[in-house]
């Protein structure tokens, strides 16, 4: 499988259209979508599903006696109207109409407004997601030591600070931790150590003496707990930081 395909965000798109991703994940998807026609097409298909989902709600019918009472009231009012010899004023007609039909009309109106608002709200959210983000995002490549791992480095627009987000990394023995390496030329500086939760997820604010954008690349290795002065263990994620 090519690296380009590996980097698709197709698996995140269902949660993206449901608007339940974290801000970091949402940014990652939005940035990818801006340049990927494959994921855009998949998003459009999933959005159609999301647009149809409100229709899956089953309408609840009111108890039979409610309908009976309503029909009896309407019938009795119609009889009164027919038997009356007096001309009926417009105001009286309007009052009758409102009294008999207002609850049903009101209910229908509320249902239509709720559905309409729901659909509009989803469209608005999608439009917001699709706006380009000023944050820089770098998707890291996994290695044979961690073929399922996912990693993203999110950098501020000035390239000074960054946060690493990883998922699907294996939990390590208590004596081991993951360590981030910031690589510039032949130098490798530690960017921090971290451990993942039982789901393999972690986030880490990168510690660096230089603005992050000045480094050439980033790597993550398995090191003794607390970190090493230089990389010694297996590399699990890596990525270039284009200047």
């Amino acid at each position: 499988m090519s690296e380009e395909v590996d980097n698709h965000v197709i698996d995140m798109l269902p949660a993206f259209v449901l608007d339940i991703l974290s801000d970091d994940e949402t940014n990652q998807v939005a940035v990818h979508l801006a340049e990927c026609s494959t994921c855009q097409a998949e998003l459009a298909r999933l959005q159609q599903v999301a647009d149809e989902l409100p229709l899956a709600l089953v309408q609840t019918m009111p108890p039979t006696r409610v309908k009976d009472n309503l029909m009896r009231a309407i019938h009795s009012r119609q009889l009164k109207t027919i038997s009356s010899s007096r001309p009926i004023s417009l105001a009286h007609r309007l009052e009758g109409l409102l009294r008999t039909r207002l609850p049903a009309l009101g209910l229908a109106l509320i249902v239509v407004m709720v559905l309409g608002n729901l659909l509009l709200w989803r469209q608005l959210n999608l439009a917001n997601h699709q706006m380009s983000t000023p944050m820089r995002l770098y998707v890291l490549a996994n290695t044979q030591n961690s073929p399922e791992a996912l990693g993203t480095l999110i950098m501020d627009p000035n390239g000074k600070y960054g946060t690493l987000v990883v998922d699907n990394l294996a939990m390590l023995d208590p004596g081991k931790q993951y360590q981030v390496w910031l690589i510039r030329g032949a130098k490798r500086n530690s960017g921090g150590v971290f451990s993942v939760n039982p789901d393999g997820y972690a986030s880490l604010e990168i510690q660096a003496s230089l603005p992050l954008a000045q480094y050439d690349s980033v790597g993550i290795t398995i090191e003794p707990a607390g970190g090493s002065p230089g990389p010694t263990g297996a590399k699990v994620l890596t990525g270039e930081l284009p200047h």
Partner: protein
Amino acid sequence: MEWEVDLVQRQQRIRAAVAQLPAEQKQALGMAFFQGLSHPEIAAALGEPLGTVKTRIRLGMQKLRTLLQDEQVT
């Protein structure tokens, strides 16, 4: 009344598709879409691992997409 017929058909189509989902996918999707809960909130409410909840929602949406797409083709 054409739009009413269309609406009824769409309701039937999406309900039939949702009915084909496994119960746990249906439950997770409902909590996400209709209650607006996030992945971690759903995981906490169900007492399930976060990854499991993510997978259920992803598979559920992808299956709905496939079912609705197949229906349009046939």
